[in-house]
């Protein structure tokens, strides 16, 4: 419970800091880079190394690559759909969220089978 609270506090601060950085910059396409900042990883990797060791954290980072690839596909689709159909941002981002789950878990399962 304490560990989760610590993660919550650190995660909240790091994510907010990157969001503020994103607010500060113009143009919008550059500010958008901060939407895919390694905020959760920065908040959590140090704690993971301290509690579970470097080998465990490295395994998490390996999977994170797949999550990041899924983020790339998801954000590109959100952008394309937004430009193409001028949809409401919240509905588009939430509606396409299953894409992130499908790509990240799909890639993870494929890698498991291949290995």
């Amino acid at each position, binding site marked *: 419970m304490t*560990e*989760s609270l610590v993660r*919550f*506090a*650190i995660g909240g*601060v790091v*994510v*907010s800091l990157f*969001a503020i950085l*994103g*607010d*500060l*910059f113009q143009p*919008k*396409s550059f*500010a*958008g*880079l901060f*939407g*895919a*900042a*390694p*905020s*959760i*990883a920065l908040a*959590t*990797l140090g704690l*993971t*190394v301290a509690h*579970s060791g*470097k*080998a465990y*954290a*490295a*395994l*998490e*980072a*390996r*999977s*994170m*690559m797949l*999550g*990041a690839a*899924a*983020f*790339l596909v998801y*954000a*590109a689709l*959100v*952008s394309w759909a*937004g*430009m193409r159909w001028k*949809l*409401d*941002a*919240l509905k*588009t*981002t939430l509606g396409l*969220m299953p894409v992130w789950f499908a790509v*990240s878990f799909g890639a993870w399962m494929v890698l498991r089978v291949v290995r």
Partner: protein
Amino acid sequence: MISVKPGSLKESRPHEYVMRFVFGGLCTAAAGLIAKKFGPGVGGLFLAFPAIFPASSSLVESHEKRRKKEAGLQGERRGRDAAAVDAAGAALGAIGLMVFALMVWRLLEGRSAAGVIAAATLAWAVTAGAAWWMRRTLVHVLRRRKTRSASADAAELERR
């Protein structure tokens, strides 16, 4: 051209900052719990979860809409365009996120964790920035070509 606009921080309302903090905190805590329950393979995926992306995207849209409304314009379309452009930036940032993860995966063992995480963060910034610059250059070149070919067509029509 990249510029810093400190005044844009005033556009966010206090509840928007609280919302980002809570979303970010919840997603980070959840990533830890998922890793504990399902192992580092599944837990690692969530280190790149688009945690506050929907909320941020929605804020970009509403800020742009508000700005246009204050200028007496109908800003719904512009707000949605701004959110789509912001998402394109996030896609480029995700390329940097992949490089960050690759560096932590390959370099962590046998080295200082703080040093590796700092170097990976720098690599994220450099990769994301380079990807943004390349996309921007490409868009400019394509636009210039389109304009040139349109004016060539117009000149050809005039000649006829």
